[in-house]
Structures are given as C-alpha cells and as structure tokens.
C-alpha cells in the first residue's frame, strides 16, 4: 500500500526538519519527503496507485514512543489488555510503548516476557517493548535473571511502583545491568518517608487533612540512585520526576557526566495538588480577565495566567469541575505544586529531562470509587497525553518542535536507539495531529479500559487524527484526510510553530 500524506507541517526532530510538504510511504517505509515549495519531477511521477491523505493544517511527525505504560496483561485484564492498551496508544499517537513489569505474574521471568511478546504479536496494534523486573516478584529481595530477560527481549529493568529500598540491592542491580547495556528505570520513592501518604505534602494536604508525600521522599531516593549510578557507571533512568528538587539533582548529575536520563508525565506538567481540592480550589480572578471566556487564566495559577494574557486562548484546565477528594487525582508520584511545574518545564527546555512519558495506569471503577487514601494510584493517560502537553505549547511555555522531540527523539535516546524519524528508508511509524482543534475529554470514548482521568470534561486543543505503524494505519479519526481540499489552512499553524500565538 502506498500513501501520500499531503500538505502537512512536517516536524522531524531527529533531522531538525520543520517544513510544509508531502510524505510518501510505501511498503511500510518512508520513501520520500517533498517540500511544498519545490514541485519535483519525482512527485509528479507518483502516479495514481496511491492513497492521498490530506493533512493540511496538521502536523506530521514520527510516531511517539512511551517509556512508561501499564498494560495490566497478564493478570488484570479487567483493567486493560494488550489489545485495548495498544489501541489506546495508537489513538494517542504512539507507535512504540514500553510495558512496565507490574503485571501478575510480573515480568520477572523469561517465560512471562515471551508470553507478553506473543500476545502482542497476536493482539497488539503497535509495537510493545517489555521492561523486566529488577527483583523477583518486584519484592526487592533477589535480582531477576537479567541477562536471560534481555535475551528474551527486555529493553530495561524497573520495579516501578515497588521501588528497590535496599541500597545494596540497588547498587547490585545497577552494576549488573551495566553489563547488559540497558537502563534501570527507577521510580524514586523512599517508602518510609511517605508512609501512609495520600497526596503531595503541602498547603493542600494540610487543609484537607490528607497524609502527605513530601518532595523529599522522591528527592532523597533520586540522590541515592544518582550516587549509585555514578559509582557503578550504569545507566540510570529516573521515572516520572515530579519535584523541583529532583530536576536540580538530575541536572547537576548530568553536568558531572553521570549516565542519568529522566522522564516527566503530561499530568505532572499541567496539573497541581490544587486538583485534589476540586471545587474548593482557589482560582485566580482579577483585573486581567477582560474576557473571562477567553481568559486562559484558569490553568495552574497566577504565573501561567500572566504568561498568557492577551493570547485569546480558549484552552484552560479548571480543577473546579471535580469534587473535593476526587480519587481520579490520586497518582504516584502525586500532583505537586506550581513551583515544581516551573522546574519541570525548565528541565524539559534545557535538556535535563529527555522524554515525556505517560505513566498510563488504567484502573477499574471499583479501584477508584472509595476513600481517597485507599484509592488506586494512577491516571489513564495515553489518549490525553498530546492534548495535555499541547496546552503548554498554546500557553507559550514549550515550542511545538521541542514537545515533538520529547515524545520521539528523547525516549529513543533513553533506550539507546537511533531516533525515530521520517527520513527516507525509515520504518513508517508516524502520527498526524491537528495541534489546534478544540475537543472535550470524554473518557467514555477512550479505547483504554481505564476511564480514570481527572481531566474528563476539560477542553483541550490538539488531537491525533491518524497514526501509522509500519506503514499500516492503526488509528484514523473519522474520515480524516479523505476530503481533497480542506478549509483548514496550513497558515494557521504558523503561530504555533513559532510560539507566537
């Protein structure tokens, strides 16, 4: 099958390309990119035997890679399966996802890894890479047979939500993994310092009387793991960093040359602990909002609001749509403060943080419909990841090319791979998204079985229209791209591409 994706704004971070043009795909590979400015003879010679996808007004980028996905299969198929999880990923623009090992049984033996890969071949819509467990049963007691797990296909190791507490065990895990050339992905949390926690420790936890998870419980473990990585020379990857102090530790370590990489989630970049207050949240009001409906002031607070005055944006996120103590806001690590978001954004911009990863954690209703402190941690994030991070672009806090890089090139580098790209000859893993289209998050439309999203009902701008994996369309929104001429103009993108609003 041949496809010609026409008139898209092509962003290929790996090639440092941002241009308007056409992409020709054949036999599962990118064949050629045509710059719209110059009509070449090859382009005229494409012929009729091709499906044209009209991508005018949309971005065409390499497919996204998610370093941190929970697929729940085997063991908790009522929460998610490889079939539903990979379809959700395709709907989110992802063409590769890395499956965390906290399944039942966990990815701690080669047989389980082979089974997961086998199910993926049968049910998967996109590529799934398997992260192995660091310790047997993720119990922190005995290292898994890491070499055999790598042989079976594991691309990294993590005990994720049950982080290795014993520093000796962590030292050994890092040292052993360094032999195999794969990273240890560390969910950094001192589980004694945050014992019994329900949310981020701060003003909101004090008001609501919920036991707190202090930033120091993450930071102290990041500091420990960096010291151990420095000592062993291993590649340490910090999962979902959420604190300003954590970003500073990683930045400092990278400057010293420690092999440490890091990821951040869309929700930690956009939502704060104010969301646990829900309708009780204090939302900035004041003189600046001449047109409240377009204010863009309801985002995260004062600072971001000031940044976006006068942009006329219609995208904001309003915690007051939720009730107080809404368990959909419960996630590990917890939603933090405004100053943490500022630091995370700075970390993304200056390269301290390599990747945006979803930590997609689907849960069933019963896991969430209970007392706040008893609720399962996690947000179903694959299908809203792009929309959430694009709010940062619309607010002028990130530029679109950088966001695309953190979803494509960045995670590939963490995995030690050559970056996903639209370069001719590359596997045709790509996404077409409209960066501007407004839509309202409706969890009932999720492909994921996990409907646990705190941003249900919020309006976002920017949505995936088509995802192609290996040259096969794995997701297409309605009849996207089938009409020959679209009223949408490529020029509408100009403002977004240059972050001028």
């Amino acid at each position: 099958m041949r496809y010609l994706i026409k008139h898209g704004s092509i962003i290929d971070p790996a090639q440092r390309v941002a241009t308007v043009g056409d992409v020709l795909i054949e036999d599962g590979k990118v064949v050629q990119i045509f710059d719209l400015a110059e009509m070449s003879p090859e382009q005229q010679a494409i012929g009729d035997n091709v499906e044209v996808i009209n991508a005018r007004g949309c971005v065409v980028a390499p497919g996204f890679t998610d370093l941190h996905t929970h697929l729940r299969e085997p063991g908790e198929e009522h929460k998610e399966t490889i079939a539903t999880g990979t379809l959700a990923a395709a709907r989110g623009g992802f063409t590769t996802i890395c499956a965390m090992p906290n399944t039942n049984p966990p990815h701690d033996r080669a047989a389980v890894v082979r089974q997961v890969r086998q199910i993926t071949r049968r049910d998967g819509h996109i590529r799934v890479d398997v992260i192995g467990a660091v310790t047997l049963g993720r119990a922190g007691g005995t290292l898994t047979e890491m070499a055999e797990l790598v042989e079976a296909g594991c691309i990294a190791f993590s005990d994720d939500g049950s982080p290795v507490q014993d520093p000796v065990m962590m030292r050994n895990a890092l040292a052993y993994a360094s032999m195999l050339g794969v990273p240890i992905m560390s969910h950094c949390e001192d589980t004694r310092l945050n014992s019994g926690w329900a949310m981020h420790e701060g003003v909101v936890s004090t008001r609501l009387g919920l036991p707190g998870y202090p930033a120091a419980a993450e930071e102290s473990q990041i500091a420990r793991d960096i010291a151990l990585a420095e000592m062993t020379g291993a590649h340490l990857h910090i999962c979902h960093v959420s604190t300003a102090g954590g970003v500073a530790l990683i930045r400092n370590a990278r400057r010293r040359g420690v092999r440490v990489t890091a990821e951040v989630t869309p929700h930690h970049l956009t939502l704060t602990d104010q969301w646990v207050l829900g309708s009780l949240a204090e939302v900035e009001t004041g003189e600046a909002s001449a047109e409240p409906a377009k204010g863009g002031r309801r985002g995260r607070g004062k600072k971001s609001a000031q940044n976006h005055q006068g942009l006329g944006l219609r995208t904001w996120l309003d915690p007051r749509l939720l009730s107080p103590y809404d368990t959909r806001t419960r996630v590990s690590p917890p939603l933090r403060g405004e100053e943490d978001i500022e630091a995370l954004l700075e970390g993304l911009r200056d390269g301290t943080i390599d990747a945006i990863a979803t930590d997609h954690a689907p849960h069933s209703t019963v896991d969430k419909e209970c007392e706040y402190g008893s609720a399962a941690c996690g947000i179903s994030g694959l299908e809203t990841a792009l929309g959430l991070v694009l709010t940062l672009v619309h607010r002028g806090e990130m530029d679109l090319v950088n966001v695309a890089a953190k979803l494509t090139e960045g995670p590939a580098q963490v995995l030690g791979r050559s970056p996903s790209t639209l370069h001719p000859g590359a596997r045709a893993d790509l996404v077409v998204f409209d960066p501007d289209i407004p839509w309202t998050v409706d969890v009932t439309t999720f492909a994921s079985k996990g409907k646990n999203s705190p941003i249900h009902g919020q309006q976002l701008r920017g949505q995936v229209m088509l995802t192609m994996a290996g040259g096969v369309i794995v997701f297409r929104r309605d009849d996207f791209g089938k009409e020959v001429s679209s009223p949408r103009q490529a020029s509408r993108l100009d403002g977004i591409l240059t972050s001028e609003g």
Partner: protein
Amino acid sequence: MQPQPSVVASVMPEGERRRHLLDLDDVSRAEIDAVLETAESMKEVLSREIKQVPALRGKTVVNMFYEESTRTRISFELAARSLSANIINFAARSSSVEKGESLIDTVRTLQALGADILVIRHAQAGAAHLVARHFHGSVINAGDGRHAHPTQALLDLFTIREKLGYLDNLKVAIIGDILHSRVARSNLWGFTKMDAQVTLCAPPTLLGPARFWQATWPRVRITYSLEEALDGADVVMALRLQQERQQAGLLPSLREYSRFFALTEERLAQLADNVLIMHPGPINEGIEIAPEVVTSSRAVIGEQVTNGVAVRMALLYQLASQVTHEE
C-alpha cells in the same frame, strides 16, 4: 417547628438551602449564627422534664461510625431521639465492612432502606465528601481523618458564646497535636469566620511548616512557646495527644511533652479569670492537661459535651427542614 418533607429540598436550587455539613469551610457566618440560635432553643428543650419534641418524627438518621467514638456517637443519638427521629447506629466492626463491603455500597443500601440523614465518622479524610456524593439525602460529617469535625467546632463556638457572650475578635490558643487534628482544622474555619486571632502551638513534629497553615488561614500565628500562645488568650483549647504519636517517633517522650506543652495551673496563673479552658475530649489527664485544670472553674469541658447535643439537634433540624435562612 413543623418540618416539611425533605423531598422538596432536591428541587430547590443549590445554595438556597444547605444539604450537607461536611466542614465549616463553605459555611457562612450567617449560617453559623443561625445554627447557634437554633441550638439555644434546643438547649431549652433539653432542660424540660420531657426532653423531646416531634420535629423529626418519621425521619431516619443513621449513625455510620467507622471509627471508635463514644461521646460523638451518643451525642448524635441523643440529639436525634430528642427530635423524635428514628436513629440507627452501626459501628464498622459489627457491620458488613468486615466482609469487604465498600463505603459506597453501604451508602446505596442505606439509601434504598430510606435513610434521610447520614452521620459519618471515618478514619480517612474525605470520607464524608465521598458519602455525600453518593447519597440523595443529607450528610453530616462527624469526623473524617485529620480533615474536619464541624459539629465539634460549632459546639465550641456555642459554648464560647454562651460563656463570654460574644464571638467577635477573640484571641484563641490551640495547643497540641494540631497536625493530626480534625478539631483544630474545623475550629480554624469557625474562628476565622468570627475574625478571631488564632495561635497554634505544638512542637514542629505535630504541626508541620507554618506556611502550610498560613496559606489557607493567613491570620493564624504559629509558635513553639506555650507562654507566647497563652499570652492574652480569651480561649485556650488543648487537644488530645494520642500515645502512638510518641511511639511513631514524633516525640521524645510524653514526659517531655507534658513539661513543655501541658496546661497546668502554674502556666494558667498568668491568664485572666474569665479565660475559657476547652478540650474536645477524650482527655489524657496529666499529659496535655493537668487534672486540677480539668476541674477548675475556668474549664468548660463538661459544658462542651452538654452543648454538643443541642448543637447537633439544631443541625439535624435545619438539614431536615425547609427553613431557608435569610442572610
């Protein structure tokens, strides 16, 4: 006092009538005043020979106690009975909670059984909000984790008003395990609405950073010095110190805590004669408060308990009736 059926309530626009009492954060000064005034009438009822009126006849109140409590449960039970409501008590240990029945499922069951008002006590903050989201009638928070205990704060205000004759511009010192205290949090809202100057006093391990409190309650003062907290106070409130705080390592010893933070005759000597000594109970005599202070003329701890019934009657009555209070 002739309440009408509560069915009407659901068709009334939000804001015209309070449906739940989950905390005092969203309760106005006018509403508080209305409750305290109604409580005065209720107190008069309780002084009669026959301590009962038919105001809530035919209504069903369920006491859902997921955490041990004697005084609050009995207080609500007496309040409901004095208003002639049907009152059903259940404690977590004797209910289906042990079988893994979820809180929400229990609420749905009570809904189906025709309960009108749920009174919930629970060890986890936010439990009352959860119940309120799933119940069509009214919910009263009788204490949820560290979060809120609004009826305690209301009975404290009632007692202060009764004893001092006013509630404006009070100087209040709250001493003890603030961090884990729902009483402290609800009282902060209550006193703040009365423009009181509140001082919190505890060692840092039982308090947390001052800015965590001052962001929500900007006028609150924080001190580690009991002398400073007591200085000029009109009301002094000691909080119960649970012994497990020491076991958890938050305190070196109960002995040291008592030496520096207990209310003793000696320390209270500096205060005016009409200062009120309060305690939400149950009391650890000799730990946070000396026995002779408990029995001193300035202590109103017994009155707090007595007034609790009247205040809870007032609340039950107001939530069950259709009276809208003009502000």
